[in-house]
């Protein structure tokens, strides 16, 4: 029988080296190049079956650097609650030593030095090694591999192959079910074409045909592992037609549909499910609220907001697993099932340190084959950076500062806007900026860099609207993502205020003058959700800019002043 307390202890980040006492923190081992694949896989199989979970891969095939946010504010009840903890506060909460391998994987400070010590993370060939090893250890019939979505978008190869590269990788990994969000930006026809042929299930209970409300996808699927019946309910990103181009999926409606989640749970139980899992692209805070309102969910596999939380979080009797993004982590959850109920669990968020894991040869060959036709483009060096280039953070990131500067210069604009995406890799000082790296931060199906006029009042309205999407105190009114990045303009934001009262002090940075509410400004931006948006693809704009500046050197961005946190 599995002791729940013992499980809980095993989940603590501080005891990541379960059974390897005396070796010290994982970090030092890695730094001394003694961190091994075995250390990462050490777990102690428990219970009836193993659930493996990865999410928000954003089409990253090779290993990469990915810096976690230094600012990740929670509002309302989520304030100070995981995942809204960063750096020191995060390490204190999860007992992670500063400078350790776990600190490098999970927090942002000292990133440059730690990146040198611990190297790149992720890589689907490394993921394949871990997954194969765990299947071999437990027996494949006791392992269920699930994917939380945002898998098909985020690289040049995924864009150019219409996601076929990622579908092939998922098939090779043995993914059994997924749900989606950015997947839908390939358009309804392509999504349906893939789903009809894929060897895995695409589950989305909350996507409906908008005339009669018919289900577009399979809502749930039951798997049998280790003798247990596991019902997996899919929940696609509920705000897809608002956050991404609705015209690409004109006949589909989304939404939270909480009552329907409950119905799915009840039906699954009635059909004899022992374990009910919500494979959710809601975003963490939405999942947290839903966990407290929908009865009978054993596990929520959280996605969308890219949070990496080294312990399973619990709301009532529901476990929430947040497994990060970009292939940095593989979540392993062993569940014990007794009398048709979950009676215990053991969890580990396995950091995928690429230097410590032997690449799986078959997967490495597949990645090579996928990238070969594009290798000339991918390897093209556009410039170099002397500044750490990253994206994650609520208000700005240096990669977006670069993109905003490129738009100001290349599109002759006074103000530039770059969406608050959470995907895209990190480059360390001294790195070459290859087209591959640029595409990792920009590749998407609606990349036009538009140029238009907006008044100061309109600019404020836009910032207010986006801010409400992130800082509305009720997570059911949030859409995920970070604040839109702004070039050429500074502002103050009080995140504790209600909509239309958060933004103040809009200032034109060049002149230091307040933005004139009535004056029209020339604005450049990209990733408009509207059909027929005109302009060059954003990667061309940034490439041109890099050809001009050659070396990127960015001053710290102090143009956004944050209060109320």
């Amino acid at each position, binding site marked *: 029988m599995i002791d729940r307390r013992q499980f809980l202890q095993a989940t603590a980040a501080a005891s990541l080296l379960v059974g390897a006492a005396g070796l010290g923190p994982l970090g030092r081992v890695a730094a001394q190049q003694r961190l091994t694949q075995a250390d990462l896989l050490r777990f102690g199989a428990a219970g009836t079956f193993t659930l493996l979970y990865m999410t928000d891969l954003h089409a990253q095939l090779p290993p990469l650097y990915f810096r976690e946010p230094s600012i990740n504010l929670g509002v309302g009840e989520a304030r100070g609650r995981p995942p809204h903890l960063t750096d020191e506060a995060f390490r204190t909460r999860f007992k992670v030593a500063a400078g350790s391998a776990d600190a490098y994987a999970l927090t942002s400070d000292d990133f440059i030095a730690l990146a040198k010590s611990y190297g790149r993370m992720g890589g689907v060939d490394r993921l394949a090694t871990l997954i194969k090893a765990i299947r071999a250890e437990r027996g494949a019939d006791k392992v269920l591999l699930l994917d939380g979505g945002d898998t098909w978008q985020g690289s040049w190869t995924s864009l150019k192959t219409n996601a076929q590269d990622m579908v092939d990788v998922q098939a090779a990994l043995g993914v059994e079910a997924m749900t989606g969000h950015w997947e839908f930006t390939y358009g309804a026809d392509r999504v349906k074409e893939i789903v009809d042929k894929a060897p895995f299930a695409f589950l989305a209970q909350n996507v409906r045909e908008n005339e009669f409300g018919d289900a577009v996808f399979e809502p749930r699927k039951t798997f049998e592992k280790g003798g247990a019946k596991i019902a997996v309910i899919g929940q696609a990103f509920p705000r897809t037609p608002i956050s991404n181009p609705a015209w690409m999926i004109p006949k589909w409606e989304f939404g939270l549909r909480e009552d329907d989640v409950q119905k799915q749970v009840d039906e699954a139980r009635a059909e004899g499910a022992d374990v009910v899992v919500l494979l959710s692209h809601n975003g963490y805070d939405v999942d947290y609220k839903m966990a407290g309102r929908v009865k009978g969910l054993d596990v929520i596999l959280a996605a969308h907001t890219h949070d990496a939380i080294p312990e399973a979080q619990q709301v009532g009797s529901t476990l929430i697993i947040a497994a990060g993004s970009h292939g940095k982590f593989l979540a392993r959850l062993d569940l014990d099932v007794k009398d048709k109920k979950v009676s215990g669990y053991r969890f580990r968020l396995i950091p995928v340190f690429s230097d410590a894991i032997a690449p799986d040869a078959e997967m490495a060959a597949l990645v090579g084959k996928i990238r070969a036709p594009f290798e000339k483009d991918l390897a093209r060096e556009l410039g170099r950076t002397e500044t750490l280039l990253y994206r994650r953070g609520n208000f700005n990131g240096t990669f977006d500062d670069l993109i905003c500067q490129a738009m100001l210069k290349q599109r002759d604009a006074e103000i530039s806007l770059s969406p608050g995406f959470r995907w895209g890799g990190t480059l360390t000082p001294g790195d070459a900026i290859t087209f591959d790296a640029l595409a990792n931060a920009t590749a998407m199906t609606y990349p036009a860099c538009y140029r238009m006029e*907006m008044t100061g009042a309109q600019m404020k309205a836009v910032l207010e609207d986006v801010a409400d999407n992130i800082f509305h105190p009720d997570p059911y009114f949030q*859409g995920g*993502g970070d604040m839109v990045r702004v070039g050429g303009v500074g502002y103050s934001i009080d995140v504790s205020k209600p909509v239309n009262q958060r933004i103040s002090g809009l200032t034109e940075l060049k002149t230091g003058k307040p933005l004139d509410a009535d004056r029209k400004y020339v604005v450049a931006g990209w990733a408009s*959700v509207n059909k027929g948006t005109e*302009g060059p693809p954003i990667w061309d704009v940034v490439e041109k800019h890099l050809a001009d500046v050659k070396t990127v050197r960015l001053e710290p961005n102090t143009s956004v002043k944050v209060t109320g946190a």
Partner: protein
Amino acid sequence: MSSTFTPSRRTVLSAGAIAAFAAALAPRLAFADEKMVADEIKKLYGDKKIDAGKIKLDVPQIAENGLVVPITVDVESPMTDADFVKAVHVFADGNPQPGVVSYTFTPDCGKASASTRMRLAQTQNVVCIAEMSNGALYTAKAEVKVTIGGCGG
């Protein structure tokens, strides 16, 4: 089903990138407010007491398309000759006109349930009033956010 909804004078901006900001940038027209909704209800029912409860008002928290926002109203009632829902009225406090739709029911309806789609010009409250056969009144309210879109994740 009769709709008292008046089409907005606002034309939808649809050309080019500016449409991204259509909802936020629409020219400011005179919109209804909470008081106008209260006045409409007063016109129908005077100062009669209105209780919370009985109504399940199903609207999205965030509209996927402000032009066609789905709404479903269910009122708890046995729908017998002795006890049934007579009417349901829906109002929106941020549209050019507060009225959205009014339904009337008879016991023969079997249940007091209705669905339609409404246009919402901006983020606002949708207010629903149910009049029972014994004269009792119930209300429910829900905020629907109409946003300009754009994304993170």
